[in-house]
């Protein structure tokens, strides 16, 4: 060993890097991806807003007025039924991402009564009630400054318990369960890197979630099903679920709905189902299937007759929210962007809750999937239905 190397070795002084280097690198990758998505979404919103401005007002260009009526975008599935076109803008070669429907604002928006913590809002009365302090303290959202939803609340079928992402004993994100009144908070997952996106089974005995398996499959996320009573988790999907799109049980509880792909697909993400008992997954939409390029955050309505997802048609304009019959017919667009697949449908399947795309601070809208009418009801990062007239909002 040269004398200089000996000197340098003395300079190291036995220093070693902090532990868990590989896991920390993966968390850094996840943070980076989230930030890139936010930046891409911001650019997309600006471009989309400019397109809407040009289409609806003509922008800086001269326009010839049309007859004011145009069916909704029909994609490649034949005829479609869209929202009311009574107030639709003049015809343009490439239609706006949504074809119509009114937009109104709930009277409590813009008032000082809106809590700055996660809360419940009654859509009938406007009453807003913060979640119990104990739940808020343990939730992951308190530690995040990206503006992207992190806690991903999910309500049990009986409405008595919340599953959500909190800060685990080791500082990693893990799934917690608590009474809706804040009693009985407990950590139910202990995965080495972390767990997220909890979703309750219809009978309330299992929770599906996305995580990293202990045998270290590092490409994307694995999907697990946790038996709430025993605390045991079974891996259902290995390494192909996109971490940031959420998941859901099918209405009969036999399968999971999730977004598949690793970002390398030539066309885009795929909405897939996979049996809870294990087995091969099935592509429903996206990845070029049924004329859909990208289908992320897909969710089935409570009766399984409708599907909603974020994405784009093959060759179509950028990210929009679609609603379609489960058999692939009557594809149409509605307002709304990201949402939690496990809680975005109202119990009667007539409305969805999602982020409004054109608000500065993350408006939460409720959209009628038939009329396309939307109401701005809250300010936050994400919301789920607790019952037919109540939302839980993550701020």
């Amino acid at each position: 060993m040269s004398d200089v190397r000996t000197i340098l070795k003395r300079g190291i002084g036995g220093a070693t890097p902090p532990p868990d280097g590989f896991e920390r690198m993966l968390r850094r990758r996840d943070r980076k991806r989230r930030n890139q998505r936010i930046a891409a979404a911001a650019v997309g919103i600006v471009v989309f807003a400019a397109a809407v401005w040009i289409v609806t007002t003509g922008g800086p260009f001269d326009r010839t007025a049309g007859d004011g009526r145009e069916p909704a975008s029909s994609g490649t599935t034949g005829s479609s039924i869209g929202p009311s076109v009574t107030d639709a803008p003049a015809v343009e070669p490439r239609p706006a991402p949504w074809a119509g429907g009114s937009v109104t604002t709930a009277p409590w928006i813009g008032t000082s009564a809106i809590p700055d913590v996660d809360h419940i809002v009654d859509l009938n009365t406007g009453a807003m009630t913060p979640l119990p302090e104990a739940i808020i303290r343990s939730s992951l959202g308190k530690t995040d400054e990206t503006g992207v939803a992190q806690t991903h609340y999910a309500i049990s079928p009986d409405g008595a318990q919340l599953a959500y992402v909190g800060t685990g004993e080791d500082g990693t994100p893990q799934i917690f369960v608590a009474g809706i009144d804040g009693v009985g908070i407990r950590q139910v997952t202990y995965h080495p890197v972390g767990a997220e996106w909890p979703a309750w089974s219809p009978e309330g005995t299992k929770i599906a979630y996305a995580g990293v398996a202990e045998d270290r499959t590092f490409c994307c996320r694995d999907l697990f099903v946790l038996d709430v009573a025993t605390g045991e988790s079974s891996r259902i999907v290995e390494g192909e679920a996109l971490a940031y799109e959420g998941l859901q049980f099918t209405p009969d509880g036999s399968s999971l709905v999730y977004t598949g792909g690793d970002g390398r697909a030539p066309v885009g993400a795929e909405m897939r189902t996979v049996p809870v008992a294990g087995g091969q997954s099935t592509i429903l939409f996206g990845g070029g299937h049924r004329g859909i390029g990208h289908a992320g955050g897909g969710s089935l309505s409570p009766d399984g007759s409708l599907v909603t997802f974020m994405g784009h048609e093959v060759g179509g304009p950028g990210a929009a929210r679609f609603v379609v019959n489960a058999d692939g017919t009557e594809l149409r667009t509605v307002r709304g962007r990201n949402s939690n697949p496990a809680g975005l449908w109202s119990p009667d399947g007539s409305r969805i809750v999602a982020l409004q795309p054109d608000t500065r601070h993350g408006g939460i809208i409720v959209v009628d999937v038939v009329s396309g009418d939307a109401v701005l009801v809250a300010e936050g990062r994400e919301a789920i239905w607790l019952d037919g007239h109540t939302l839980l909002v993550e701020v």
Partner: protein
Amino acid sequence: MIESESVSSLPGVAEAAAFEEFFLAEHERLFQALYLLTGDRYEADDLAQEALLRAYERWDRVGAMDSPAGYVYRTALNLHRSRLRALLVRARRVFAAIPDEDLSGGVATSHDVRWALSQLPRGQREALILVEWLGLGSEEAGRVLGIDASSVRGRLHRGRASLRELLEVRDE
């Protein structure tokens, strides 16, 4: 109605396993080299993490290179040279979990060495660490630094002499 499609195994899984093996082999060495370069454990860890992450993100290409380690070293050095990044690292350091160094007792000598390294021009410091610590040849070090091998040897010669001189001064 619903198309069936089997789930094929992803090429990324095998690549990820290969990268993990690379990571485990290189991480500590890279961290120590960057610690010598920066004199700061937090910055060394941050640079090592970022450089390895960038290699991971491009592993399908980097893994096929003759020297993936060289790619990582070059990336780390370029990151270190980025002034804006240095400002961000220092700002984040306020909240870092890595404890401050204990300079008491036997660690004082290692502090002297890092002080001496910090006095060297960056080019000499980089050449010394790449060749003397990481064991690269002059040719490969030149590729990492973007200079020719003879320039590497020149920086080494001057760096070694300066380092010895500085340590003798420190010992007085």
